């Protein structure tokens, strides 16, 4: 039902059941928010979004108040602005104020609010927050002193990921956010997905930095420093340099990485193709040999840790394939080292990932050969942007370059890994070929595309009808796993990504991207797939060569040794 309300003396239409904030946003008006999270239930706790409603004595939170017919609202009256300003001043009163040293300097919601509301003097001074840094995690650094208690990290961890590693602890002015029994993130159930970083308005959460270690190795002449980048990096890095969301700067990125001093530049999409060869073979093997089904993907290290903690009964369902990052790492330090005549210990292998959990995955003990890590350091997209700026590279002035051969050549199927549903689509294409000996007539699997948290489809492979499901956001994964536990058997293959929408919205991506930006990144990936000549992993000539010259066959002895792994049950605290 439609109704009309009056906002700042203008009449606008609204729908019954909408909140004031929904209506304002729909009409292109904005009020500042802090605790509000799109798609989740409003809490109205920060009171940043207050507006004046005629006839109401107190200011009203726009995020939680439903519209009423004839409501008269003032969004920026002086009373409202004064109230918002006071909130910001109070938030600043115990804030460390070390903006110049802060990760989020220039990209901080608190900074922006105080700028927008013209906070220009310290009216309220309180005791500064004094909490210990939590540097225990391999992926995420927490600084509770910078926290303004908006609660968005707590909610995303609970309501989107179903993990609840962090919670409000204590009461009143002594409240802060911490793990159970103040143990630190590494002992908590944290899966390192980094979605908390993505929603944090301040610098209270950030990735564990690897930049200085990489710089040390870049200046070490005895080291050959190689870098690989994940499929989704080339479509998101652009935003850090002022390009439109979804702009693909893969060529410029290759050039920039060489300017920084990386000796070889590889594309993780190549090893995504490799993952597909192994994973599709594993799927076909499981289906034809009555193996454990449904098989579940294992490319997402956030999901893998979640399964080890909360769903260890499902571990036999997980594909034994390492993730593309780790496969590339293993191939670099074996095949590539061999062909280049390099000793594996003299190769320093870096990866750029849209992900903080990759930093955890990289240091897992399963991910080593003879005591040498497959991958030595992991940069997030944000860290790469920082590294490029640090080296004074003007990315606009570069000429595009190609990645190094052979580990830099991909099919477009490998590129699709960046989006939720991409692994599934790539795997279906190759599994279809393995089962029937023929290519699919139409490669697109529309049912697994899009940003929805859960997608299901059925694919015909000859006589075989294969049921597939794609979930992103681990709350959705928990739901489908519960269905499998309860006996659902029409699904053969499940793709799970911890971050909503997949890696294009990963915890290591540029901060502040909205849904439109994520959608633009996804569209670019599918556009690339549309235009590319090689759309299937098994037709990537260098993958064929890698199997001919080195690996033998998928699931063979060498593959098993280098490209597959195992999982461990983890106790939860």
């Amino acid at each position, binding site marked *: 039902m439609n109704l009309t309300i009056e906002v700042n003396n203008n009449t606008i239409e609204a729908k019954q059941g909408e909140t004031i904030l929904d209506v304002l946003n729909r009409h292109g008006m904005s009020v500042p928010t802090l605790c509000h999270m799109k798609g989740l239930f409003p809490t109205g706790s920060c009171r940043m979004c207050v507006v004046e409603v005629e006839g109401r004595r107190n200011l009203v939170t726009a995020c939680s108040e439903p519209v009423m017919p004839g409501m008269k609202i003032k969004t920026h009256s002086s009373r409202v602005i004064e109230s918002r300003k006071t909130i910001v001043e109070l938030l600043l009163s115990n804030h460390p104020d070390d903006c110049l040293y802060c990760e989020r300097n220039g990209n901080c919601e608190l900074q922006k609010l105080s700028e927008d509301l013209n906070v220009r003097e310290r009216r309220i001074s309180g005791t500064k927050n004094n909490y210990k840094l939590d540097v225990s995690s391999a992926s995420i650094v927490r600084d509770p002193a910078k926290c303004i208690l908006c609660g968005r990290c707590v909610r995303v961890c609970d309501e989107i990921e179903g*993990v609840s590693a962090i*919670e409000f*602890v*204590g009461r009143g002015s002594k409240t802060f956010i911490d793990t159970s*029994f103040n143990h630190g993130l590494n002992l908590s159930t944290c899966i390192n997905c980094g979605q908390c970083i993505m929603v944090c308005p301040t610098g209270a959460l950030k990735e564990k930095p690897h930049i200085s270690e990489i710089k040390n190795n870049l200046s070490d002449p005895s080291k050959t420093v190689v870098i690989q980048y994940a499929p989704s990096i080339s479509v998101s890095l652009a935003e850090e340099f002022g390009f439109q969301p979804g702009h693909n700067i893969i060529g410029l990125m290759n050039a920039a990485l060489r300017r920084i001093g990386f000796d070889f530049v590889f594309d993780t999409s190549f090893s995504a193709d490799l993952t597909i060869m192994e994973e599709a073979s594993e799927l076909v093997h499981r289906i034809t040999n009555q193996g454990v089904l449904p098989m579940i993907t294992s490319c997402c290290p956030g999901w893998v840790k979640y399964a080890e903690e909360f769903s260890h009964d499902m571990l036999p369902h997980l594909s034994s394939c390492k993730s593309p990052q780790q496969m590339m790492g293993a191939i670099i330090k074996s095949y590539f080292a061999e062909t280049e005549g390099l000793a594996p210990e003299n190769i320093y292998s870096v990866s750029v990932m849209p992900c903080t959990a990759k930093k955890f995955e990289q240091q897992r003990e399963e991910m080593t050969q003879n005591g040498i890590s497959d991958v030595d350091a992991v940069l997030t997209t944000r860290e790469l942007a920082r590294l490029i700026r640090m080296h004074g590279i003007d990315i606009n002035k570069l000429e595009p370059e190609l990645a190094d051969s052979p580990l830099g050549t991909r099919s477009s199927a490998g590129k699709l890994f960046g989006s939720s549903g991409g692994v599934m689509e790539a795997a279906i294409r190759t599994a279809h070929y393995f089962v029937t000996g023929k290519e699919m007539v139409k490669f697109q699997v529309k049912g697994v595309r899009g940003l929805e948290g859960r997608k299901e489809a059925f694919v015909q492979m000859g006589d075989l009808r294969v049921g597939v499901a794609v979930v992103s956001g681990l709350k959705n994964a928990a739901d489908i796993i519960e269905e499998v536990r309860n006996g659902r058997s029409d699904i053969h293959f499940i793709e799970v990504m911890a971050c909503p929408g997949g890696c294009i919205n990963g915890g290591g991506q540029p901060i502040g991207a909205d849904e439109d930006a994520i959608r633009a990144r996804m569209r670019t990936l599918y556009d690339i797939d549309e235009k590319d000549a090689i759309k299937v992993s098994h037709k990537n000539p260098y993958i064929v060569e890698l199997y001919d010259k080195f690996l033998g066959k998928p699931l063979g002895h060498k593959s098993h040794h280098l490209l597959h792994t195992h999982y461990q049950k983890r106790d939860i605290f």
Partner: protein
Amino acid sequence: MKSTVQEILTHYPNAGHDSLIPILQQVQEKLGFLSEEAVIEVGKYLKMPASKIFGVATFYNQFRFTQPGKYHVQVCRGTACHVLGSATVLEEMEKQLKVKAGLTTRDKLFSLEVVACIGACGLAPVISVNGEFHAKVTSESIKSILEVYRNKETQS
């Protein structure tokens, strides 16, 4: 052999999240504090993450997370006691016991807790040791009060 926590949980069949606080109260009554193991066990039973339970429990003053000492010292910080100098009493107590409020001494003899008001304002500033009240305490009298309990230990 059922653990103490499991024993308590048998009294809460089909319990929902609303039973959390009564369960925690009973656990604390039996164990003297909320141990990590107990919180995890309760969490498994109620299908609640341990972090959430820890969050709830730290919100309330009544829950503690370290084993209480043999003698549990409560320092009243209510209004009347405050006016008559309970801040100094607490400070002195922390100094004498060498622990902060909420913690237990290393020899497990004393634990120190701050309470809001124990309803004995006429005796302010008042402390209670295992339920035994000591009226009108001063920084000087604290030493002798603690001495009495320490002596009890060495005699027995």
